[in-house]
């Protein structure tokens, strides 16, 4: 209820608990809430499950969180990249679990969590390794997989600007997973470029309504 404007990133992440499921926005580095992740590293929560499209790039942001040994399990669509050396090392050493989810299913499972959907049928993955253990069902002549919602305890997202009502707007393709993760977590924390005055965002152009945002912190 209501949005809290935090003094800094450390305050924003102070209550993240060990064992939490953390949804982290971004597609590569675009839209990655790097300063919140840095604060989480300082804060020290461990045994985390992280849901994010990738499994870290280079040595900063999510890669740094992995490198600090705080993440037990990654749920993502595309861990293997040219600069995912931190994840690669942990994975090959057996020090991190991996659940690979097709990118659209990853997004849709989080949307379902935010929208009160108990499960949905989709065609993606039918007949592949990623269908193993999943229920299949034929509906009107097409085969579907049953997918379950993927909720988070916390979401860390990055946005271009917020207003005092917690409304968010994004910038170009940095929008990516932010809006859907905001709906799927019990507590959503947005790292934003600026917090504008009430009425400072066009109501027609708001992408994430403030109801989905619990805390904002500006850069």
């Amino acid at each position: 209820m209501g949005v809290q404007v935090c003094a800094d990133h450390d305050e924003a992440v102070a209550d993240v608990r060990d064992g939490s499921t953390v949804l982290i926005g971004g597609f590569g580095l675009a839209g990655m809430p790097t300063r919140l992740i840095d604060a989480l590293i300082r804060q020290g929560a461990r045994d985390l499950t992280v849901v994010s499209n990738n499994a870290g790039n280079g040595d900063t942001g999510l890669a740094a969180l992995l490198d600090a040994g705080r993440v037990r399990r990654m749920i993502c669509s595309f861990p293997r990249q040219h600069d995912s050396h931190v994840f690669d090392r942990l994975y090959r050493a057996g020090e991190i679990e991996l659940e690979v989810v097709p990118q659209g299913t990853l997004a849709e499972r989080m949307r379902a969590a935010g929208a009160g959907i108990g499960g949905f049928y989709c065609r993606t993955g039918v007949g592949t390794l990623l269908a193993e253990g999943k229920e299949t069902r034929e509906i009107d002549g097409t085969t579907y997989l049953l997918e379950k919602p993927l909720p988070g305890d916390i979401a860390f997202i990055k946005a271009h600007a917020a207003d005092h009502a917690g409304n968010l707007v994004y910038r170009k393709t940095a929008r990516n997973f932010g809006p859907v993760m905001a709906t799927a977590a019990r507590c959503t924390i947005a790292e934003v470029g600026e917090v504008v005055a009430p009425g400072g965002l066009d109501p027609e152009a708001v992408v994430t309504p403030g109801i989905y945002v619990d805390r904002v912190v500006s850069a």
Partner: protein
Amino acid sequence: MSLRITDAPRSKDELAAAIAADIPAGAYVNLGIGQPTLVADHLRDDGGVVLHTENGMLHMGPAAHGDEIDPDLINAGKVPVTELPGASYFHHADSFAMMRGGHLDVCVLGAFQVSATGDLANWHTGADDAIPAVGGAMDLAVGARSVWVMMTLRTREGAPKLVPSCAYPLTGVACVDRVYTDVATFDLAEGAVTVTSLHGVARGELEALVEVPLRFA
């Protein structure tokens, strides 16, 4: 919580004011259509309560008058309304995802009947020639974190509307948390009905009127 008692039944406005006073600061609230929309007139300006309307808006303002009237800006009851600072617009699938996903703190709905276990009947009289119309009632009933009903305790014919089991077709099962009526307020939890306020009726009268076992706060 102790039982509050006043001398006279509550008018619609008094009832709306009582509900408004119970809404937590900063809550996201949907007031459905009809009588519950009166609650909006009694919200404190500094309470930061944000109104949602199912047809795609947050930070809905009061009813529009005169030049403010804009046919593109209406509430769920299709009444012209206004926009407050912090407003946002969204489409129907997003609006109901918000509702159904449990993001609204409170909704206030009217009712034909509420059962002691929180079943709600407010969409269909069950009459053979009735034209059924559900709108967003079933979505609100299952979606809002707290579902409050605002109604008179009795029908025009004098029959109680808080009942052991609803005779009218249901809107939702075990979904109502609180019932505000002209003569009493009821908390519903785990099958028990607790009276938290009385207005112009005595405990014994209320117990005689409703066929539901009552506790008193």
